[in-house]
């Protein structure tokens, strides 16, 4: 268990981390997200006692890292895969770390096998590729078989096979009851690996919630509706009917409609009532990436602009069209779909999934919402659980 309380770090007059409080619990993979320069690495370094907080504190299992007994056996960390002496062989690098905490040399060969570096164990790490260096860093983190693991960008530079391996490794470590805290920029990867998210922006906590809640709270799903291309008047007709029923309609480039604010069955009913045939009616759940972009767009420090290539461009030949801008580049708000629901609280805490449905009603296409406790046939408080109950059989 990692616990930060009011963690603040200032470098000169720049505040890198401000009043950060969170808990990282054992048994789950906790993702740590934030734009570049938002203070993720600083926070990681403070957890490991490398940097002293200006105020506040962070503890692991109740101890500040520097006072943790035999820290290397309790906490394993990959902070920077390049933080090795390039002239030292991989095995010697791990050996000197192992000797620090009295880990036998046999364990070094074990972890080298685990990360798949046994064939280059006696090679200098100078010649390692980014992915090999990453594997070496992961090996160092696993060395002491620790209960708490911190990984800063572990999949950086890994090949697809390596990414899959890291994903399964994280899940397996968490399933063994360990505390796994991992930062990454790869949203798709995070969505597959993490159960819980801590999101910071400009050094402050933006969200601390489960990944499902995060997506539900920060983005809207929508329904994609397509009417026959051959009859444009049907499209107009349906748009008007949906708007009348309280939905929002946005035309898409390819002629389809993006509908929010109405559940899918209702859209189908409206189409039926207005006598419009549908070629497509499909639910679209927002991705973690979309939700993340939406939440952090105000907290991004380094944003790209459109490359104007002024002075490099040949004058366009007469009649030629200028190229279309690349979606997402230099267009703030590209990833800003409409707010989840009228009066929605974009940064709110965990919500009841039934209320968070993107169509203003329980989303029949999403995962079924948890049964309300009152509806349960035999609440555990009123009826003593019997051994035959399937709920308790596991």
């Amino acid at each position, binding site marked *: 268990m990692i616990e930060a309380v009011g963690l603040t770090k200032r470098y000169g007059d720049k505040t890198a981390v401000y009043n950060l409080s969170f808990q990282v619990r054992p048994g789950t993979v906790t993702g740590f997200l934030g734009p570049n320069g938002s203070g993720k690495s600083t926070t990681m370094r403070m957890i490991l006692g*490398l940097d002293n907080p200006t105020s506040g504190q962070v503890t692991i299992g109740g101890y500040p890292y520097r006072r943790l007994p035999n820290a290397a056996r309790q906490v394993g960390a990959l902070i920077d895969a390049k933080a090795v002496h390039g002239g030292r062989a991989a095995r010697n690098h791990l050996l000197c770390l192992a000797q620090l905490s009295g880990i036998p040399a046999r364990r070094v060969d074990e972890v080298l096998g685990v990360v798949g570096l046994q064939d280059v164990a006696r090679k200098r790490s100078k010649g390692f590729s980014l992915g090999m260096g990453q594997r070496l860093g992961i090996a160092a983190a696993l060395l002491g078989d620790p209960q708490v693991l911190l990984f800063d960008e572990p999949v950086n530079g890994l090949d697809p096979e390596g990414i899959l391996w890291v994903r399964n490794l994280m899940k397996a470590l968490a399933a063994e009851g360990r505390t796994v805290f991992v930062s990454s920029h790869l949203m798709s990867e995070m969505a597959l690996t993490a159960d819980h998210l801590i999101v910071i922006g400009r050094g402050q906590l933006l969200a601390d919630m489960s990944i499902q809640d995060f997506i539900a709270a920060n983005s809207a799903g929508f329904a994609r509706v397509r009417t026959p291309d051959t009859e444009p008047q049907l499209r107009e007709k349906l748009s008007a009917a949906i708007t009348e029923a309280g939905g929002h309609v946005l035309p898409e480039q390819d002629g389809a409609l993006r509908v929010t604010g109405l559940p899918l069955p209702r859209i189908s009913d409206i189409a039926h009532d207005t006598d419009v045939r549908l070629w497509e009616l499909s639910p679209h759940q927002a991705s973690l990436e979309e939700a993340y972009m939406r939440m952090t767009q105000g907290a991004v420090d380094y944003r790209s602009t459109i490359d104007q290539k002024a002075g490099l461009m040949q004058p366009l030949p007469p009649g030629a069209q200028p190229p279309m801008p690349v979606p997402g580049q230099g267009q703030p708000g590209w990833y800003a779909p409409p707010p989840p629901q009228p009066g929605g609280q974009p940064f709110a805490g965990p919500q009841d999934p039934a209320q968070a449905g993107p169509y203003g009603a329980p989303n029949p296409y999403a995962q079924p919402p948890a049964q309300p406790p009152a509806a349960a046939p035999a609440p555990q408080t009123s009826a003593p659980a019997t051994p035959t109950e399937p709920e308790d059989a596991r």
Partner: protein
Amino acid sequence: MAATQVIRSEWTKIRSVASTVWTLSLAVVVTIGLGILISALSKNEFDNMSRQDKLSFDPTFISFAGMSLGQLAMIVFGVLVVSNEYSTGMIRTSLAAVPQRGTFLASKIAVATGLSLAVGLVTSFVTFFLGQAMLGSHRAEIGDTGVLRAVIGGGLYMTLIAMFSMGVAAMLRSPMLSLGILMPFFFLISNILGNVSATKKIGRFLPDQAGSRIMQVVTPIDDDTPYGPWGGLGIMALWVAVALIGAYVLLKKRDA
């Protein structure tokens, strides 16, 4: 965490990088080689020397003439042992593994010092005996008064130079900055201050000049140095202590 574990780890670190072997063997080769060369030259020059020079002729000290260059290799060794942790970023891995920074620094310096002492003593004895062999009839014997002290002192001098460099490197962190300050300091500034009469009185309290006094057996005739051989080494040890305390204080409070 037991200090022995940290020491064993530091030993693995120091023996597994090429720079250790290179810098230390350079120190050995330069000190011994130059010592032999200057001893041989001194023997040939002896008859042409003035009476005063002949009286203050110090065969032991002559054989240590290579030390002035050999110490530069020891400086590089001391600087690299500490600062390669910083230049490679290894320091973060190391300090994450050993949060007790005092133990970490002490173990690192203990291991490097032990190695320097072993190499320094071997170099000192070898350069003495080979140098004396070159000096022929003008040679000193190891049993002569003060000679054994000077030879052991030569090894201690090399060790202290390396330790001082470790302290400075731990304070400055960058290998380039550390070498950029230490090299000119010991190679040029100290010599200039020591040879210009106006600054001589200050120059002789610099670590290398004070420390090298231990290697002298015959005191020059017009010598007015206010300290003896061990006093000089003590002054050098004070410099080392200040550098190491500074390193400890900075490491303790600084962000890694």
